[in-house]
């Protein structure tokens, strides 16, 4: 059975896009359509997700540059398909392992952030001084 290609994008508020793709090995011979269906159940509505939580490369348009009001924290699932190409996942995961990871992160909650709080910013530094563990965010807050 072919490997499975996971294609995603960053789309800003003005509909400018930047694409990313990762090929996962597929030793369990999963069908790409069922993979996509399961992934969409794990991701936010419209296939939105936080790339760092499922360890796929971020393809932000603002990476290393200036932000605009159209920028945000989410990436978007485009689709999955079978491919004869070799696996490219930097973490060596199979598509089954990737699905497990996506479901686990969905259960924990997708951690939205403000790009203006990105690593290196003063607000990011100040926020890092206060552990989220000290804040009362239970009540299933991550699923809100």
């Amino acid at each position, binding site marked *: 059975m072919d490997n499975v290609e996971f294609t995603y994008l960053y*789309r*800003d*508020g*003005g*509909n*400018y*896009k930047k694409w990313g793709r990762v090929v996962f090995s597929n030793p369990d011979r999963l069908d790409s359509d069922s993979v996509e269906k399961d992934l969409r159940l794990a991701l*936010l509505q*419209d296939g*939105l997700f936080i790339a760092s939580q499922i360890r796929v490369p971020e393809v932000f348009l603002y990476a290393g540059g200036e932000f605009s009001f*159209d*920028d*945000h*924290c*989410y990436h*978007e699932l485009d689709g999955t398909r079978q491919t004869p190409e070799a696996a490219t996942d930097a973490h060596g995961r199979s598509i089954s392992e990737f699905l497990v990871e996506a479901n686990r992160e969905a259960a924990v909650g*997708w*951690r*939205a*952030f*403000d790009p203006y709080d990105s690593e290196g910013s003063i607000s990011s530094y100040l926020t890092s001084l206060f552990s*989220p563990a000290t*804040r*009362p*965010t*239970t*009540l*299933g*807050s*991550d699923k*809100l």
Partner: protein
Amino acid sequence: MDPTNFSNLVEPVQVDAFEAYLAAEQIAGSRALADVFLPVIGEQANAAQMVGILGQYFYALDRFFLGLTQGRRPRAGKVFEMLIRARIYLTRPRYFCII
């Protein structure tokens, strides 16, 4: 409005779509808050108790609203693309006539 300008055709529809989105979001958000907080606060709680609970979950609410505002931007971009597609589809017969 100048109908020969494509942007002038799309932009008012996009503004209307965004207003409809915000109206639907308010209804859904209100339901979500009720679903989560009413069992915690209790329907007989007084105003002080209600405000106290909201303050207790201040950071949960902070994350909730951050997710909402961040999510509007990619959706706005996607709606723009959908409108362009719909516009092209609706005007397709006219292009066929020209051809």
